[in-house]
């Protein structure tokens, strides 16, 4: 640290005369404790404590209105033999992998498009973000209407074009329901990926591209050897966030299908709500939620190493 330490207690010959209270008042650790108090209180009471409580509850048979007794791994053993639980794990992984991969592809493509010069650039960029602004549930309701079995506008258009003979049952058939919720999730997630990657793209100096063009690089080579390496760290962070939020998604599914048809779109989060709150088996719900934690830890580890790499690339060690 090259900066002056601003609150060192002033040491003078009159130090004894300074009362212990005023010495305490200028002690940075003491002052910082008070400054950290509100944020710390919120995060400990409503984040850290429930996190621990959730893990504890997964080992109990708690129900709504009754605190449970410790039953060891019984909830997990029960889930291990539960086909619906494994179906929800499969759905969650499928949902996360497919949606994140497509979100990344379209988001990166859109970011590259938006990074080029065109009229009304700022306006177009601000429009792109709108799906991200509108509350997920409300846009999911719009998708619900678009996916309606009788009056779907997609079915109507395709019928008019002569491509299908009868309406598609978007949310009624297991596989098309999975595809439909994934499409809605991609639609919602692309703007976030595109705008954050665009912010990364804007930090890449245009002179690099000019130099590469003079040396005869094709546009693919410019992307592969300039854009991609410089963008890797931010891609790592953005995709970790994207994966994290997709994996733990709840509201889109709940608004569109509530896990149906026949549990085909149940994610771990929706199953946890179904079992924990609606059926009232808090312990079992908590066990499903706790089972998500290992996956999240992997995502966080990736994010962490991605950021370390970014700091290393930029030559900083204390950002």
């Amino acid at each position, binding site marked *: 640290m090259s900066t002056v330490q601003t609150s060192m207690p002033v040491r003078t010959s009159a130090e004894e005369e300074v009362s212990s209270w005023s010495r305490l008042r200028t002690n940075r650790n003491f002052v910082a404790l008070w400054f950290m108090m509100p944020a710390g209180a919120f995060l400990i009471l409503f984040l850290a404590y429930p996190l621990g409580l959730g893990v504890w509850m997964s080992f109990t048979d708690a129900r709504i209105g009754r605190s449970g007794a410790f039953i060891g791994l019984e909830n997990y053993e029960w889930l291990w033999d539960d086909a619906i639980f494994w179906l929800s794990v499969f759905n969650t992984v499928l949902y996360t992998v497919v949606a994140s991969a497509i979100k990344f592809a379209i988001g990166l493509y859109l970011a590259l498009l938006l990074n080029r010069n065109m009229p009304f650039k700022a306006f177009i960029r601000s429009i792109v973000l709108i799906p991200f602004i509108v509350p997920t549930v409300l846009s999911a309701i*719009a998708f619900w209407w678009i996916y309606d079995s009788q009056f779907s506008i997609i079915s109507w258009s395709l019928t008019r074009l002569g491509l299908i003979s009868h309406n598609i049952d978007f949310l009624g058939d297991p596989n098309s329901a999975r595809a439909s919720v994934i499409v809605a999730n991609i639609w919602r997630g692309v703007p976030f990926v595109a705008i954050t990657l665009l912010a990364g793209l804007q930090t890449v100096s245009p002179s690099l591209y000019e130099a590469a063009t003079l040396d005869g690089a094709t546009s693919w080579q410019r992307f592969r050897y300039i854009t991609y390496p410089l963008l890797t760290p931010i891609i790592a962070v953005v995709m970790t966030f994207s994966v994290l939020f997709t994996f733990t998604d709840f509201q889109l599914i709940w608004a569109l299908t509530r896990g149906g048809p026949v549990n085909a779109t149940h994610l771990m989060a929706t199953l946890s709500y179904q079992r924990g709150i609606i059926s009232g088996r808090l312990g079992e719900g908590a066990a499903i939620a706790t089972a998500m934690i290992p996956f*999240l830890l992997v995502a966080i580890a990736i994010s962490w190493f991605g950021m370390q790499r970014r700091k290393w690339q930029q030559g900083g060690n204390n950002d």
Partner: protein
Amino acid sequence: MTDSALQSAAPRAADDTEGMSYLESLPRRLVTLYLPLFIILVVLLFPFYWMVLTAIKPDEQLIDMNTYNPFWVVHPTLKHISKLLFETQYPRWLWNTMYVAVGATVLSIIASVLAAYAIVRLRFRGADTVGVLIFFAYLVPPSILFIPLASVIQAYGLFDSPLSLILVYPTLLIPFSTWLLMGYFKTIPYELEECALIDGASRWQILVKIVVPLAVPGLISAFIFSFTLCWNEFIYALTFLQSTPNKTVPVAIVNEFVDGDIYKWGSLMAGALVGSLPLVILYAFFVEHYVSAMTGAVKE
């Protein structure tokens, strides 16, 4: 870090408005840039167009797709919206959402300013560790917390009260706002604080009179983004609020409008539209703050 990146990007872009684009002919740009961009924009905006159109369409046009072209509306009506505002508890739900969002956001910003200042400028023992812990808190999703939180809320006697959301939402907002504000506070010169300390200002006075006024853009970003997150939050509101008048807009839309009526779509879309409008208007006024909040939180 965020600011330096954003600020350095802006003038550079302004310098090279032409860039290398003169190398491309117009037809080529049309195919590689405008056409794909147009298609993506249409897909991104279509659900909103559809939402607005449905909200102002008379019922008979909604279900008769052969007589009327479904992509347009012939005699627009405000029936759905007025029914929503005067015959349901929608204004009450809007008010609940607003109350919860403002309350939680204000609490979070106050806590975040204090925490960010302490971490960046007081440099207390363990400040870096606390910073990392707060970042991890950002990564804890509500989906794994709502069951234990429901029993915590029950134990505090706050079940079915909007106050429970005001107390719980800061856990989503504080980590994000703190990281964003840490980035802003780092850009404020130490010299200002040193001068103030020499003049006898206390830490509190420095924070309120020097640091906060200089970080106003960051505060606006944090405020808008937090407000949007609150408005968007669903799973806690769904779990904690039971009685109809206490619900927030997203929860009420999902639970109260689904009555199996074939004509429900008009009022459902009107509800979604009216519920989205406050955020879209807010966004229209603060686009730049919004983008810097979103990218800042990721880049820090």
